[in-house]
């Protein structure tokens, strides 16, 4: 599903050039659950942004769904993204002006799905995430755990092939974090590919494989026996 060849990402600001990713060669297959770990500033979020088609690599190849997309325009990436990828952020990134229901509905609106269909899909996912009773609340009125459940609902409502989660439990207590991890595991078992950035060794236990990054390099990859290629 994802394949990078000698991929690099360099940030140039006025003063300095930062090499955030350096000759990264990673392959992620469908239905995998991958955790990315590493110290702060080693390039985890950068990698996730490239995977999520939010940013282009500076050079090297990046294949997504068998397409070489590293030179895609913003518009092409947006189209590919909205149909295939869901995001879960550490800080939830819900829109404060929208209700729970509307936040979850948003990706469907951009996909141009009919109102009837949308209603069914949103209700479905909200029920599944046990947050249906809060559908008319605004994000600020919810606890952190509830907000993350809404964010996950939004990420999965359009049934994406790939979910990218950047420290999804970082702002949650352990009980709520556990719950989010269970949801992600369940989604993975249903066939969704998941790439998750985490600092927590405990969370990484849920993944099939852990990629360790250090200073923009892939250091090690540990496979667990749970998943065999």
């Amino acid at each position: 599903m994802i394949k990078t060849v000698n991929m690099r990402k360099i940030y140039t600001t006025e003063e300095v050039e930062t090499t955030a990713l350096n000759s990264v060669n990673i392959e992620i297959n469908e239905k995998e659950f991958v955790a990315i770990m590493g110290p702060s500033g080693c390039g985890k979020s950068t990698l996730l942004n490239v995977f999520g088609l939010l940013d282009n690599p500076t050079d090297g190849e990046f294949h997504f769904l068998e397409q070489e997309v590293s030179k895609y325009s913003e518009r092409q990436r947006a189209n590919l993204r909205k149909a295939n990828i869901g995001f879960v952020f550490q800080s939830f990134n819900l829109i404060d002006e929208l209700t729970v229901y509307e936040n979850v509905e948003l990706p469907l609106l951009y996909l141009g799905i009919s109102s009837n269909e949308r209603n069914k899909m949103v209700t479905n996912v909200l029920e599944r995430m046990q947050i249906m009773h809060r559908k008319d609340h605004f994000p600020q009125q919810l606890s952190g755990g509830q907000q993350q459940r809404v964010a996950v609902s939004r990420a999965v409502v359009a049934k994406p092939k790939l979910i990218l989660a950047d420290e999804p439990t970082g702002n949650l207590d352990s009980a709520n974090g556990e719950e989010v991890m269970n949801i992600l595991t369940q989604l993975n078992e249903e066939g969704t590919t998941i790439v998750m950035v985490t600092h927590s060794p405990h969370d990484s236990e849920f993944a099939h494989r852990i990629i360790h990054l250090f200073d923009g390099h892939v250091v090690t990859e540990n496979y667990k026996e749970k998943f065999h290629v």
Partner: protein
Amino acid sequence: MLKNNIRIAIRNLRKYKAFSFINIIGLAVGVACVVLILLYVLDDLSYENFNRNAGRIYRVYSSARIEGGEMKMAVTPPPLGATLVREFPEVKQYTRVMPTANMLIRYKNNVFNETRFFWADSTLFDVFTMSFIKGNPRTALNEPHTVILTESLAKKYFGNEDPIDQVMNFEDGTPYTVKGVIKDCPVNSHFHYDMFASMASIDVSKANFWLNDIFYTYIVLKKGASPTVLEAKFPELIKKYAGPQLYQALGITMDDWRKKGYAYGMHLQSLNSIHLYSHLENEMEPNSDIKYVYIFSVIAIFILLIACINFMNLATARSVMRSKEVGVRKVLGSNRAQLIIQFLLESIMLTFFSIMLAIVLVEICLPYFSDLSGKQLHSAYFNNLFTIPSLILTVLIVGIIAGSYPAFFLSSFRPVKVLKGKAIAEKGSWFRSGLVVFQFSISIILFIGTFIIDNQLNYIQKAKLGFNKEQVLVVKRAWALENHAQTFKEALLKNHNIINASCTNDLPGQIYSQTLFKPENASSSQQYLLATMFSDYDFIKTLDIKLASGRYFSKKYPSDSLAVVLNQKAVQMLDIKDPIGKRLSFSGSNISYQIIGIVKDFNFESLHQSIRPLVLLLNRGQSSYMPIKISSKNISESVSFIKNEWKRFVPNKPFEYFFLDDEFSKLYLSEQKTSEIFTAFSVLAIFIASLGLFGLAAFTAERRTKEIGIRKALGASISNIILLLSKEFTKCVLIANVIAWPVAYYFMNNWLKDFAYRIHISLWTFILAGCLALIIALLTVTLHAIKAAMANPIKSLRYE
């Protein structure tokens, strides 16, 4: 999708109440100003539109260039109109009118003084559109001693009786028969009438004078006829008709006279242009000026711009807070166009609310604005088919203009950066500062304009005129006293509060006539145009006009009826050495007048004019005015004393008077009004600009909360922080001054050129305006700065 957009838009407006409030109020005030000014301008542009033939009606005016200058008069010789119709087939019809300022009219036991009285040819209704309620326009003014009245006037005289064929008596006792009733005079006409009497009643209408300009002549051209072609034929016509009379008077042929550089001519001006473009001598009423239409339109556009800029600035500043929303939407697949639509929709909705509020504001302000502008303005939104569509169009246009920059700015955010929490607002900040500079430049220009206009008006009102206009009560229609004028005057002077009194035909500030004079020994073609004033012995004493040399008229010298007094300007122009004892004569007359004295120059016209050469003559007949100098003590008693004496002398004639200084300030009425409107709109402009600044400062303070927290934790004092936050805006206002000063100087210098007597533009005016803007800006900004500076740093630091 759209429903979702609208829902979010409404929620956003509700959530950011302060933001929405500032924008809606600012824009509403802006739009209300524009609507008011638009009503004002449209009203000015609608003059004469009620005339069916308005496009083909022209007024003929005359011009003369002789020694002493050139002048253009709205009046023309008596035979001109009829001659034009006879000589030129393209002239379809003509009519002449002549006002008489005060006409005393009696019906049964009632006597009224009619001030809007005109003599008019029977063809009046072929030229102007006046609807008859009773009577026949074809015949109403055919016979001598007939009149037509407006509806209201007929009601005043006859109540519910039928006015037709009723007889009313003019002051000299002549009976006039009412032959028609017409609708009341429309407001938007360059002259206002209540009553017309037939031209056939007065002899001068039949006079064959070609060198005396007496009547206002209007003509209607046939369809398709060109006024310029017609005008080109006038010089020949003048030569043909006025030439012989010129030769008789001066002994010189028209051609020779013209060769000397003199000129006498007739010209056309379209009826539609009179109200805004005509500023001739002897206008029936003071006209407005296209200049003010332009000035006010520009102000309106500026105010709207200021309000739109507020919107742009606030929305962009707020983008910091909305950047997350933009980022998330983009991550979820929204494209730029969808975001732009979202933001435009919000701005259009804001505009919609603003315009609704603006309509309410206009309704509330209209009576006051009508008062201020001296116009009768009506909004009458729903009388007009175009109102609703044009309102919708305005909402869209203003909404899109105001919303476009924020929409494009916000939608261009890169989602990755935004979600990282990077501040993106810096990018737009120079643009925002530029807009603030622009707003304040305009405000400062308006301030400077207001100050200079105000100073100039003050200056001309307080200027030394060379005579004393204070505590001078002027009795109008002094001729009503007939031959009791002298005894009336003596009776008044018995009261110790009455200092002086004079009988005169002319007064400073009133229309006067000009006559051609010829100094003794000069060649017959050497003619000088001099203003004339006819008055009695006590004139200069009453008005406190100073003698420069010689003496004024005196009863001791019976020969003074053949004497003249000149002002210093006249001596200069006539170029007479040792003028006392020299002689002058009216052109074309053999009677010569001896110069007995010279008065110091005094301003007998508005200060738009420099002082013209003047001849004072002794008035022997009845007089129009009786100026009475009264003591500054017991003014009201003096007035009632004069009134009672008048009642005693002429019990059934109305007593009418004015104070000379009041009448003199009326000369500056149009400037006065402009000044008031100008002041009102500059205050509004700065109000809207400050409102925007207020919002902007709020956002800046909020955006920098964390920075302020850190600085305070590191030991910055409150005043350090206030300085930090105010610096940016102070810079803007200072730059605005640099832009505003030269622009304001240029425009105000031009405006002042209309005055022969004017103030020097002082640097202090500019400094004052600049400081005022700065103070207002600082006050607005500091409020937020103080709030931000006082906040506990722990709070803001924990925030991230």
